[in-house]
């Protein structure tokens, strides 16, 4: 029975995240050649087991990866085409638990393997308490995932523990605000999560370290925050093309369609703009803050236009997001932010205008 879970969940997880894993492998083993890469990993594992501070950081990274696995599983089982998995409820608790444990072990495998190797290095270097902690932590991560999966599979008929309230901005929902309503109604959990994370990072790095702040650091942080928002264009285009496919039959000019995205991103990045205006004016001149805001909007517009490329799948998109992140970091040093924003605005508008009418819906929903 694990076969079907491997096809529907585990296999898809690695397929969807192929870009992410490739990047990790490149970072871990691609930059430094041969044996040096292994020595670096060994040194890293020694550092993790040799210091509680490093161990804490490693545990946070493992936890973040586990959150990624769990989020993927929960998202997948809620998809209409995976509704048949509800029949796992027909298994007894023990059988179901071991099946989901196997699935979680498959998803969490990279961290699990790294954790076990780290513990082995710890034992070899006589860091016994840290090595045991690493093993216990890995077991907890696997069990936690399994528990959440079982709970989620078995909860179709149970009332949710927490129900987020609906956010009705306006009683009349007009076309330019469809995407904003979509975020606040259908995707409120992930949307609020992204905004909270974004403002938390800004608070931690800008407001709390105001005395050590540099223009470059804020720019890099903003570029990172833009990348963190990169899932939004994916879900927006999917929403527009699948759930609002009737819009294609309406006489709406292409540029007006595109302006809905521009307006939405302008509103979405308003909290960050206000935050910077309030907290970072001593370090960043007003025109830099405004150019960062413009860059955020145009970059998101570019992500949106890229969604209309043929065969645009999640893994390819992840590659592009990472690529643009690093390219922007390089350009930040030499190019004026306004120039960068204008280039991206022109590119995104041209791409959208050119690709919109050629777009064909793929068979499966992209989300």
């Amino acid at each position, binding site marked *: 029975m694990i076969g079907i879970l491997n*096809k*529907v969940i585990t296999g898809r997880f690695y397929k969807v995240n192929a870009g992410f894993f490739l990047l990790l492998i490149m970072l871990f083993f691609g930059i430094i050649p041969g044996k040096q890469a292994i020595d670096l990993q060994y040194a890293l594992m020694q550092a993790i087991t040799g210091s509680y501070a490093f161990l804490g950081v490693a545990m946070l990274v493992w936890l973040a990866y586990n959150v990624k696995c769990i989020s993927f599983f929960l998202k997948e089982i809620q998809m209409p*085409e995976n509704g*048949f998995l509800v029949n796992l*409820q027909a298994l007894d608790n023990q059988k179901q638990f071991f099946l989901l444990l196997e699935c979680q072990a498959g998803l969490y495998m990279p961290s699990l393997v790294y954790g076990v190797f780290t513990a082995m290095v710890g034992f070899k270097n006589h860091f016994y308490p840290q090595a045991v902690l690493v093993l216990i932590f890995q077991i907890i991560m696997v069990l936690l995932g399994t528990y959440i999966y079982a709970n989620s599979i078995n909860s*179709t008929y149970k*009332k949710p523990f927490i129900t987020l309230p609906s956010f009705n901005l306006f009683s009349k929902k007009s076309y330019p605000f469809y995407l904003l309503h979509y975020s606040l109604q259908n995707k409120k959990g992930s949307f609020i999560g992204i905004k909270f994370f974004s403002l938390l990072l800004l608070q931690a790095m800008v407001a709390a370290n105001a005395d050590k702040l540099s223009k470059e650091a804020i720019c890099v942080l903003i570029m990172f925050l833009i990348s963190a928002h990169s899932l939004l264009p994916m879900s927006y285009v999917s929403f527009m093309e699948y759930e609002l496919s009737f819009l294609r039959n309406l006489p709406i000019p292409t540029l007006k369609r595109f302006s809905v995205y521009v307006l939405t991103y302008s509103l979405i990045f308003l909290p960050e703009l206000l935050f910077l205006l309030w907290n970072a004016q001593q370090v960043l001149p007003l025109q830099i803050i405004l150019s960062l805001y413009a860059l955020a909007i145009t970059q998101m517009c570019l992500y949106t236009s890229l969604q209309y490329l043929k065969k645009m799948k999640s893994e390819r998109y992840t590659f592009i997001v990472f690529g643009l992140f690093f390219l922007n970091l390089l350009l930040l040093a030499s190019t004026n932010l306004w120039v960068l924003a204008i280039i991206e605005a022109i590119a995104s508008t041209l791409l959208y205008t050119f690709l919109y009418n050629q777009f064909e819906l793929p068979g499966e929903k992209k989300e």
Partner: protein
Amino acid sequence: MLQIKDYKKQFANHLIVGIPSLLLPHNIYWLKGENGSGKTTLIKSIAGLIPFEGSIKVNGVDIHQNRKDYRCIVNYAEAEPLYPGFLTGNDLLSFYAKTKGATDTQVQNIMAATGIEKYAGSKIGTYSSGMAKKLSLSLGFLGNPKLILLDEPLITLDLESVAILQKLMEEYYSQGVSFLITSHQEIHFPTLSPSRLMVKDKTISII
């Protein structure tokens, strides 16, 4: 067979269906009602697919108290089935057989009866809506159900398949399986007469 008590289903504080009390003995039930009256909501509640207030028992088993047994005795085939396109019909038949406790013989018999054996080895992404519907109906008969819920079972089916479905239902009914069907199309059984239920004014009544 089916016992409903103090059932209430609301969406955003808006009552969809409320049933103070209902007891249905073994039979075939045809659930009628206008579009949006709450037929599918009720059928999904009975299938344990959405949360609800109150209690629903099938043969004395409540899903809140005994999830596994309830899931084994209540089967559900949805109106417009959707499955991952990269799986084959055989993948799903095998999965359902293992979870619902169906034997290989039963799987083979149902496949032969519904005619899905010809394409069960192909990926579902290549199926027409009628083929996917027949697969969904076949899955709905697997295991040892006591109640089979069929949401709009006749849509997208050709006349020959409708006759096969009726025959299968009669066969299962004679073995003690009850059915709750929603359908806008007339259903004729040569030897059986389904009881009619009406979902109207946010509640249910026996016609």
